[in-house]
């Protein structure tokens, strides 16, 4: 499938909800559209489904433009966020509805429904109506409705967001393995970057209707194209702090940090945004580190995250404090809250971003 400079402009809006999105999706690929609420990922999905108009550009499936086709003519199946099961039909009828509309022979409908019920373990609930099902069961019926149609594309709009946390994690892996088994091209929308990173073959990060970066998860993590992607991907988030480039390195507060080796020849001077991941900071080491005070230590069992206030950004009023600097530490040797520490940034792991545009600076 291809989005070709596709845009969506709502009537009487001054900005484009989707701004010239161009994206190629391969056959059998599991691609995740991720971004903060309101970034346009659901709108993009709906444009693909035919539920939203494409105002500019084009959308192609298997090389053919589909913008003038109704949803049912595009051979896609969609799992909506709130499942949208038919309240008056039982599970079996819900699963078979689309097949009955397509006028498939009754035995085939029965066979397909039974098969999907087996895969999703819904066999015991076939006679129940949606009101009598739990959230997880409803979610499976919603997925079942999509699978039973054997479409060429699955579209999923935040299917896990209505489930409780534990169920979410379990269902996540089920969906991923199901997709691998069925091999159907899947476009999956979520605001949760953990879901995106763990489930997708590729991940597309969207902000304000504009595609920021699309790539395999590891590349997004290691080589984010701008500060937004860097801060969005990864949990906990990357630390982004202001610094000034000088002849000896980048100055953060009153500490001068050496630049990664490839930046040896000065990349100009002036203010930049420095990106440092929590795992790229040590609490001890050569030279001076950035002074900070520990605010909070989150113990997660095997690891711990330390939230510190950089001294040079501390303000008098707690309400106007700058965001905490997060460091991954060994729970056994975590410093106490309130203690003063020095943060030593691993030189090669530092990322630099233009302070105005957010674009990553590279050589």
């Amino acid at each position, binding site marked *: 499938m291809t989005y070709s400079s596709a845009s969506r402009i709502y009537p009487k809006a001054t900005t484009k909800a989707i701004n010239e999105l161009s994206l190629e999706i391969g056959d059998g690929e599991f691609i995740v559209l991720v971004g903060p609420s309101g970034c346009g990922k659901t709108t993009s999905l709906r444009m693909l489904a*035919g*539920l*939203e*108009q494409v105002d*500019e550009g084009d959308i192609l499936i298997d090389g053919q433009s589909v*913008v*003038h*086709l*109704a*949803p049912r003519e595009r051979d896609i199946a969609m799992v909506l966020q709130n499942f949208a099961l038919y309240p008056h039909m039982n599970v079996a009828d819900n699963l078979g509805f689309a097949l009955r509309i397509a006028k498939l022979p009754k035995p085939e409908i029965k066979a397909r429904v039974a098969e999907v019920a087996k895969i999703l373990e819904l066999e015991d609930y076939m006679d129940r109506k949606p009101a009598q099902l739990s959230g997880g069961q409803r979610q499976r019926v919603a997925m079942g409705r999509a699978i039973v149609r054997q479409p060429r594309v699955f579209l999923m709009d935040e299917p896990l967001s209505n489930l409780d946390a534990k169920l979410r994690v379990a269902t996540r892996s089920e969906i991923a393995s199901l997709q691998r088994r069925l091999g159907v091209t899947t476009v999956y929308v979520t605001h949760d970057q953990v879901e995106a990173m763990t489930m997708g073959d590729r991940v597309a990060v969207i902000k304000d209707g504009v595609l920021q970066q699309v790539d395999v998860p590891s590349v997004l993590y290691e080589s984010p194209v701008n500060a937004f992607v860097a801060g969005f991907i990864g949990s906990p988030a990357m630390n982004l702090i202001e610094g000034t480039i000088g002849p000896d390195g980048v100055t953060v507060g009153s500490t001068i940090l050496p630049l990664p080796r490839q930046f040896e020849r000065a990349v100009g001077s002036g203010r930049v945004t420095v990106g440092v991941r929590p795992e790229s900071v040590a609490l001890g080491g050569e030279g001076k580190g950035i002074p900070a005070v520990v605010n909070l230590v989150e113990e997660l069992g095997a690891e711990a995250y330390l939230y510190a206030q950089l001294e040079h950004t501390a303000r008098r009023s707690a309400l106007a404090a700058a965001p905490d600097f997060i460091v991954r530490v060994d729970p056994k040797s975590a410093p106490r809250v309130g203690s003063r520490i020095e943060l030593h940034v691993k030189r090669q792991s530092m990322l630099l971003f233009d302070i105005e545009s957010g674009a990553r600076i590279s050589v």
Partner: protein
Amino acid sequence: MHLVRRRISAARVGAYAVVTIFAVFFGVPVVWLVLEAIGGNLGLWLFNSAFYSTAGTAIAVGVCVPAGYAIATHDFPGRRGLLILTMLVMLIPTSALVLPLFLEANSVHLLSSPLAVILPYGLFPFGVYLSYLYFNTERFDVLVQTARLDGCNERQVFRRIAVPLSAPVAALIAFLNFVASWTNFFLPWVMYWSLDTTKRYPLALGIAQQLFDRETFGNVPAVLNLRTTSPPSSIAFLLLVTGAPVVVVFVFAQRWIGSGRVQGVFR
């Protein structure tokens, strides 16, 4: 709920037909009731006004849009002359044209026919000028040339480029012409004063007839009758009824005039 562009299907037309039939069944008695309460041949006059204005406007749009387009996009001898002539006719006050039109209508024996009023309503030189201004822009030049290069003959260019994109100016011409026709008094007055029936009257004439009717009010013009309370209210209502269609047309015209279909030409 309407998202992807729908094609107009037979089922859709059928649905509209069914609902309209019911709407007529439900609405006609109510409308009849109101009209009967007012008195006079109101329904007929309303219909006449609508008929004359719509027919006249249809002619006006049908003539002005192609005319303006032709003048704007083709170079022919006498082009400037035609434009100046149009401007001149536009400047002549319409009342000065009414008597000559009356004599013309008389000579072809059209006086008792609706055409006596409809045909003059179709005359709208200002509309030609508006259309000319609309089509005489760079973007249309480019579109027309591109179409010609793509191998279209002139009729195809008109049909495929000009007509679809003419909505804003067509709506504007239609709106202006409709309002002018609907409110026009002098022309139908002159055309129909010699008839001894009020059957052909448009609304404006009907109202006048009611206002000056002497029969119902004992030789005093109705408008001067101060004794009864009904004339003022019914006249007020008449005026409201006269004004309402104009408002409706205005609202519709607005949506079409501002439709800006020529977006994206240069992308």
